């Protein structure tokens, strides 16, 4: 009656049957763990490979570094909190919410200090938004480099935020007529700052304290983070402690030295905030090869746009010669991830998989070549070019560029 390893028999039966069926398994006979074995639950031990991963050679220290969401292991549009990629500039600030304050200063009628409890007395909203680092896919500007969508596209996550519309807090302080920009600032060792135009601040920004229903995770800014829907992840200041209102932008380090886009002619674009329309096939992909041979194959992926909803995703299996409009499944929400599928019958020959998203503004995801022609190869940021995966006859998958 002991459990029998099923590997050899998977998918086929002996004359008398698969012992995993014909013999009574331990889990069908003996009691498992009861309730409260884990008051806060964790994934199965068989899912231990589903984790955020970093690339050691990328950065000098883990405290200013990044790791990547395992997109190829996920489904739907919500990223579980434990798997949302991390990007820190001075490590994770661990802050007792009782010791956290939010200050509003600068060009306001009344400079204010809020406790967390104060903030939870304002009307609040729940919104699903993707957060993408502007450097996502940045290592692919010069050509195919990393073998896995976790690494090429994993600086993104999408969760439900609960927070106070920033406009309520600014109204409370009273923005002066010459207040045109805000400077959100973090409480961490990097004291992260970015300049945000007041129009955006008064539009859809949230001061969030929850993600996916529970408190923000420490690595995502617990107890308070700024949500800047559709815009560069770097602007979503974590451990938010202060918002200054000013009449001009600050041109701080993260909007001059970083997060500016160097063009081939030596000029650099600045304030390139919106994360453009983009998509990627997550399965199959280099970390998620096809193991089942020919026949029915689910092609699955995610698409998003900082401009609003994704209205259509096309998928090609022949390297962009012919396209099929994919099925977008589940909620289609503005500035949120979208899940798409194309179900095919695989004949077992090579595939060159691509996906191409179109957003509600009518923008079409460009090819990598189109981007390189317009921008050169030194932009680092905002690489939303169409990704190609080469599925080989043995089911393995490689990150390639094609003619």
């Amino acid at each position, binding site marked *: 009656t002991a459990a029998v390893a099923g590997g050899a028999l998977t998918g086929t039966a002996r004359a008398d049957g698969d012992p995993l069926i014909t013999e009574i398994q331990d889990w069908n006979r003996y009691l498992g763990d009861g309730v409260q074995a884990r008051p806060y639950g964790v994934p199965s031990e068989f899912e231990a490979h589903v984790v955020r991963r970093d690339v050691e050679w990328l950065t000098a220290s883990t405290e200013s570094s990044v790791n990547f969401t395992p997109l190829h292991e996920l489904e739907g549009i919500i990223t579980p909190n434990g798997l949302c990629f991390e990007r820190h500039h001075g490590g994770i600030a661990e802050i007792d919410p009782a010791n956290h304050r939010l200050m509003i200063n600068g060009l306001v009628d009344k400079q204010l200090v809020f406790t967390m409890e104060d903030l939870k007395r304002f009307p609040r909203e729940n919104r699903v938004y993707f957060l993408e680092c502007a450097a996502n896919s940045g290592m692919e500007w010069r050509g195919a480099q990393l073998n896995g969508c976790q690494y090429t596209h994993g600086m993104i996550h999408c969760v439900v935020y609960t927070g106070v519309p920033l406009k309520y807090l600014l109204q409370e302080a009273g923005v002066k007529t010459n207040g045109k920009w805000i400077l959100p600032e973090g409480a961490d060792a990097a004291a992260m700052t970015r300049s945000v135009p007041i129009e955006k601040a008064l539009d859809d920004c949230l001061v969030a304290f929850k993600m996916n229903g529970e408190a923000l995770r420490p690595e995502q800014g617990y107890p308070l983070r700024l949500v800047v829907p559709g815009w560069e992840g770097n602007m979503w200041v974590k451990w938010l402690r202060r918002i200054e209102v*000013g009449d001009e932008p600050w041109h701080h380090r993260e909007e001059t030295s970083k997060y500016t886009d160097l063009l081939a002619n030596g000029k650099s674009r600045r304030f390139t905030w919106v994360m453009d329309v983009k998509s990627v096939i997550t399965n199959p992909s280099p970390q998620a090869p096809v193991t089942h041979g020919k026949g029915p194959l689910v092609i699955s992926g995610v698409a998003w746009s900082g401009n609003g909803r994704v209205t259509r995703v096309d998928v090609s299996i022949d390297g962009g010669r012919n*396209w099929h409009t994919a099925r977008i499944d589940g909620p289609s929400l503005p500035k949120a991830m979208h899940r798409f599928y194309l179900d095919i019958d695989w004949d077992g020959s090579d595939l060159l998989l691509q996906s191409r998203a179109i957003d509600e503004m009518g923008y079409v995801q460009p090819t990598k070549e189109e981007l390189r022609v317009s921008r050169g190869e030194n932009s680092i940021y905002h690489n939303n070019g169409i990704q190609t995966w080469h599925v080989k006859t043995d089911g393995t998958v490689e990150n390639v560029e094609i003619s």
Partner: protein
Amino acid sequence: ASSVRTDGPFGLGREATPAEVAAWDIDIRPDGLGLPVGSGTVAEGEVLYTDNCAVCHGDFGEGVGRWPVLAGGQDSLTDERPEKTIGSFWPYLSTVYDYVRRAMPYGNARSLSDDDVYAITAYLLYLNDVVTDEEFELSDKNFVEIRLPNEDNFIPDDRYDEPHYANKAEPCMTDCKAGVAEVVMRARILDVTPGSADDDGAGAGAVD
């Protein structure tokens, strides 16, 4: 009696005291707004830099290992591997003062005095050949006079003028390109998964 609310203001929070605003309001702008009163010389900065910064950024700002490079790279912005430093790339000196004061030295932020930051900023100008005199003193008085070489090369975001965005054409669906697609390039790093065969090969590019 209790009543249903429609909108703000809510009367929540409390007024910040001047000392509180002063403690947190440390940001600096290119026009000099936010600069504290103070000063420091290149020579003073060299000592402070050598003690607090060189271990990571190198004696001449050249960067140790993968730690950031702070000087050099002039005229490299159109190269295949541009070197973006304070001297070669940054548009405004205020960013140096602001950033060093808020975030450096890495691991011991906020440990420098305002004068220290003036001195180190002066030294970084010196390492970047923007000033050449070791006696040069940077202060809140002369700060905004200093201009960095690359200031004029920043332009507004014009992504949507790019041809692939500008025309918003209905994309092609069939026979979009002549000939069968051929693979012209493969992933340089085959497997970055920790523990796998070739994850030790370092690739090109930085996270940002």
